[in-house]
């Protein structure tokens, strides 16, 4: 990374001017579309500036894990398509993709959003497995927040498929939604120089010193966190970042 260019950006950020003219704690304009794909049981597309993410929910029947014989399974995967950003390459999922999937998964799992016990069909033998697939159509930063936002909307939209002779008929969906009780919202606060930012563009993400992703519930309960970036954070900084994340999560919650 070019240090001159970084110092230049840090200086601009200290005056509260971002690369695209936004304020440090300002999101780009977010639009949400529901049920965008016909093959998924539930889906959502979130557009934020130039970033576009589609999340789909598929449901399949399978055997439960032996340690939790009466609980359904949630699987989250992210795939960074090569067409979404010139820097992405093919092959097995990169560390970035794995981190995004795991952080989004953690937000949903640890908040207890899905009542997994209700996904059980026959204890120890058959349960519903929910697959959450995150795919950016155009990646201009902030994939974690947007993927999590699209993910929770897609889960809320998802309907079980109709059953035919003991097998799911994916062509007709029933009216039963997934057993969802909570709405976790993830907000990533990044630190560049001494400034705290939300909703970074891809250009800005290259200069990040440290970032903290916080998943927040409606009553401001924190249900998951993830720290990234090379530099450490002080206790005081973490409190400030969490505070900003909670404030921003309220704005995002209004959009759902």
């Amino acid at each position, binding site marked *: *990374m*070019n240090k*001159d*260019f970084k*110092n*230049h*950006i840090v*200086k*601009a950020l200290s*005056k509260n*001017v971002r*690369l*695209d*003219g936004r304020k440090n704690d300002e999101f780009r304009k977010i639009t949400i579309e529901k049920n965008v794909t016909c093959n998924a049981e539930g889906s959502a597309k979130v557009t934020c500036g130039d970033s576009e993410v589609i999340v789909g929910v598929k449901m399949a029947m399978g055997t439960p894990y032996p340690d939790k014989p009466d609980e359904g399974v949630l699987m989250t995967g992210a795939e960074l398509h090569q067409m979404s950003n010139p820097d992405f390459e093919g092959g097995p999922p990169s560390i970035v993709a794995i981190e995004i999937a795991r952080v989004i998964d953690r937000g949903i799992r640890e908040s207890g959003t899905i009542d997994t016990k209700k996904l059980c069909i026959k204890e120890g033998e058959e349960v519903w497995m929910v697959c959450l697939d995150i795919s950016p159509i155009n990646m201009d930063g902030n994939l974690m927040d947007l993927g999590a936002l699209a993910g929770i909307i897609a889960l809320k939209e998802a309907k079980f498929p109709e059953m035919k002779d003991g097998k799911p008929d994916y062509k007709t969906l029933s009216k039963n939604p997934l057993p969802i009780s909570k709405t976790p919202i993830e907000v990533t606060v990044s630190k560049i120089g001494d400034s705290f930012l939300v909703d970074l563009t891809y250009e800005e993400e290259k200069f990040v010193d440290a970032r903290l992703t916080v998943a927040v519930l409606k009553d401001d309960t924190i249900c998951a966190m993830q720290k990234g970036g090379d530099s450490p954070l002080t206790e005081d900084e973490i409190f400030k970042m969490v505070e900003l994340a909670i404030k921003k999560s309220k704005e995002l919650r209004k959009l759902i």
Partner: protein
Amino acid sequence: MGKLLVKDKEIVVPGDVIAEGMDFLPSFGTYRTGEKIIANRTSLLSIDGKVIKTIPLAGRYLPKRNDVIIGRVFDILMSGWRMDINSAYSAVLMLQEASFKYIQKGADLTKFFAIDDYVVVKITNVTSQRLVDVTVKGPGLRRLEAGRIVKVSTHKVPRIIGKQGSMVSTIKDATGCRITVGQNGVVWVQGEPEQEVLAVNAIKKIDENSHHSGLTDEIKKFLDSNKVKTKGDKK
């Protein structure tokens, strides 16, 4: 007498028959088959007397001798630097082309140009195999200090510069930014944060609306209307 089948400034796609007859001459982006002149890229047609040429709408930069471009150092070699020039090919800056001073054997080359430095260079030679040589010896050629890099389409660069640099000086005057435009579509901007954002937005606007006529006035209006806002904020 030859017949023109497509009007000037119309968009043609590969395979379009542009003209029939031998009194037209095919130029860049066109070829002749028998009596016909056919386009071989998606482009805007430009007819200059008898000569038929095309202005490509998209595509990467093709290095050309004597072009002044902005490159990014991505590798340090035994005796020079390899640069990304926003093209399919990379350029090499040889040691003897890097400085007027004598560089001693085994010297630390990062003191001149480090990895990820942006440099304004001039292309001295392009071989038939597209090996590109560049130099920093010349007026205005230098290592770029702190600023912002914006990438635009290389084919829109003439519109960003304007006639005799009219467009770029309009932006410079309105924003007070220092701007360097490379022929390869890499633009360097340096100034006050708010002004920089305005300059970058203006450049992006040119990139998007380059096919409009009266673009200079449009950009002037854009700069004026946004300038008032920043003045108002200061009050």
